[in-house]
C-alpha cells in the first residue's frame, strides 16, 4: 500500500511545474528590504550625497569601509557643503551586509542595493572603489566635479523628510 502511495506522489510531481530555477539565465527577484551590494547615491543635479564624514567607517562592525575626505570648492564641487569623499572603498570580503552604515549615514548617501552576485578571483578585486559604487548621473544632472555659484551649496546635510 505504501508502495502505491509512494509512486502516486512521484507521478503527481511529474506533471507539476519544477520549483528550481536555472540561475544565471533565470533570476529570482529579491524582496524590498534585501541587503546586497552598496551604492553611493547622487542628488538630482548630479552632486554626490556622500560628504566624506566617515561615520559609516566608524559604525562598521567589520571595519570594511575606508573613507578619505577632501575639501570642496565652488570651482570643483563634488558634494554640497565643505567636504566630499575623495577615496571611498568597501572591502566586500570583510563586509557582513548588516546595513549599519545605512543607519549611520547622515545624508542617506549609502544604500544597500539588491545586487548579490559578488564573486572575485583575487582578494584585491574584492575592494570596491568609489567609481564602482557610485550611481550613474541622473538624467538632467551633471557629472562631478561641477562648477557652482558661490554660496549656493553651503549646507552639508539637506532638509529631509521623516522616514516612513
Amino acid at each position, binding site marked *: 500500500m*505504501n508502495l502505491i502511495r509512494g509512486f502516486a506522489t512521484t507521478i503527481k510531481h511529474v506533471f507539476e511545474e519544477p*520549483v528550481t530555477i536555472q540561475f544565471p539565465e533565470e533570476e529570482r527577484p*529579491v*524582496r*524590498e*528590504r*534585501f*541587503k546586497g551590494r552598496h551604492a553611493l547615491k547622487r542628488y538630482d543635479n548630479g552632486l554626490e550625497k556622500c560628504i566624506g564624514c566617515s561615520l559609516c567607517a566608524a*559604525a*562598521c*562592525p*567589520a571595519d570594511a569601509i575606508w573613507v578619505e575626505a577632501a575639501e570642496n570648492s565652488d570651482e570643483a564641487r563634488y558634494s554640497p557643503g565643505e567636504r566630499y569623499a575623495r577615496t571611498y572603498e568597501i572591502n566586500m570580503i570583510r563586509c*557582513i*551586509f*548588516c*546595513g*549599519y552604515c545605512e543607519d549611520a549615514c547622515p545624508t542617506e548617501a549609502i544604500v544597500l542595493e539588491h545586487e548579490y552576485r559578488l564573486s572575485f578571483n583575487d*582578494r584585491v578585486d574584492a575592494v570596491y572603489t568609489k567609481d564602482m559604487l557610485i550611481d550613474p548621473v541622473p538624467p538632467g544632472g551633471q557629472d562631478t566635479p561641477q562648477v557652482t555659484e558661490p554660496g549656493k551649496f553651503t549646507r552639508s546635510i539637506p532638509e529631509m523628510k521623516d522616514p516612513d
Partner: protein
Amino acid sequence: MQSKIDKFTIPIGPQHPALKEPGHFEFSVDGEIVTDASVRLGYVHRGIEKGTEGRNWVQSLYLLERICGICSHVHATAYCLGVEKLAGVEVPPRAQAIRVLVAELERVHSHMLWLGVAAHEAGFDTLFMYSWRDRETVMNLLEGITGNRVNYSANVLGGVKCDISAEQDEAIRQGVDFLEERTRHYLEVVTSDMMFLRRTRGVATTPKAQARELGLIGPTGRASGISHDVRVDAPYAAYDIYPVKLITATAGDLEARFIVRINELFESYRVIRQILDTLPEGELTVRMPRRIKEGETVSRVEAPRGELFYFIKSNGTDTPERIKVRTPTLPNMASVLVLAIGHQLADIPMILTGIDPCFSCNDRMVVVKDSGGDNRAMTWEALRQYGIEYYR
C-alpha cells in the same frame, strides 16, 4: 595494553564528505560495532566573543547575530534581552510580539532544515528534497518580513526593525496553512515508512535517567522525557502572553526526536497564528542609552536546538566587558560519544544528526597542540602584516 594495539580506529574529519562542518571524530571499532568514540572540536573558532569586546553595543549585535547562520535571530534576541535588562529599558509589546513571531518562523525553518538533513543521512533523499522545497515557503516569508533569508537583523537594541504589514500578515497565514498540511504528511511518513523506521526506531535510545546524566537539552532531551523548555519554564519576550505547550516523548530514540521536532512545528504554527490574531498596536522601538549601566546579567532563550545561554557584563562604557555564549550543541555533543558505543558504524551519521549539531556555533575556544615546540606569539600588527604579505 594488548587490547589497545588490537583495536582499529577510524578517524573522521576534520574534512570529510559525511560532515557538513569541520569536526574531528575517532571511532574505535570491533568489526562494524563501535567500541569507543572521541571528538575534537574547535576547527571553526572565529573569536566572536573576543571581537565584541572591541566593538560598541550595537556593532556587537550584528556580530553576535552571525554566530549561527540557521538560528541567528535567537542569538540577537538573547543579546538584546540581556542588554535591555542591564539598561533597564522596557521594550514595547508590539516589538516583543514580532520578536517571538520571527523566532517561531525561524524555528519552523530550522526544524524543516533538520528534517531534510536527517532524512538525507538516513538515505531517504526524497524526503530531504520535498522538505527543503517546502522550507522555501518559510524562507520567503522571513525574506518578506526582514529582507534576508538568513541573518535577518530583525532585532535592534530596544525593539525591532521591521513591522508586519497587512499583506505580510496574509502571506504568513497562507504559508503557515500550506506548511501545516505538509508537516502532517511528514509526520505520517516518519512514523509509518518501514525503511525509514529501521534507521530510526530503537537507534540511540536514551532513557530519561541517562539523558539527565548526559545533560541533554532542547528537543533532543524532550524526546527522552525531560520536561525542559525555556519558553515554558522562564518565559521571555512575549512568551508569557503567547504560551507554548511543552512537547515531550518518552521513547528517547531517533524516532522520538523526529516526532518531538515535528510536533513542535505544529505548536509553532499555532503560536504564529495567535500572534497575528492579537498583534498589539504601538511603537516598535524605544530609545536605548549609548552607554549601558555597570552590571552583569544572564539571558536564556530557547533556540531551535535547545537552551541558548548568554552572559553579559558591562563596565559602564559603550563596549561590553565580557560576553559569554553557550550554544545548545555543546551539552548535546557528549551524548553522541556515549550513544555511539554498541551501534554500527553506519548508524553514526544518524546519531550525530539526531542532536541537530551546529559545529561553528559551539566552537568557543581552540586548543593548539604545539608538539614541535614552535611557540610563536604574534602581535595583532604582526599578524595583520603577515596576512597582507601572504595574500600579496
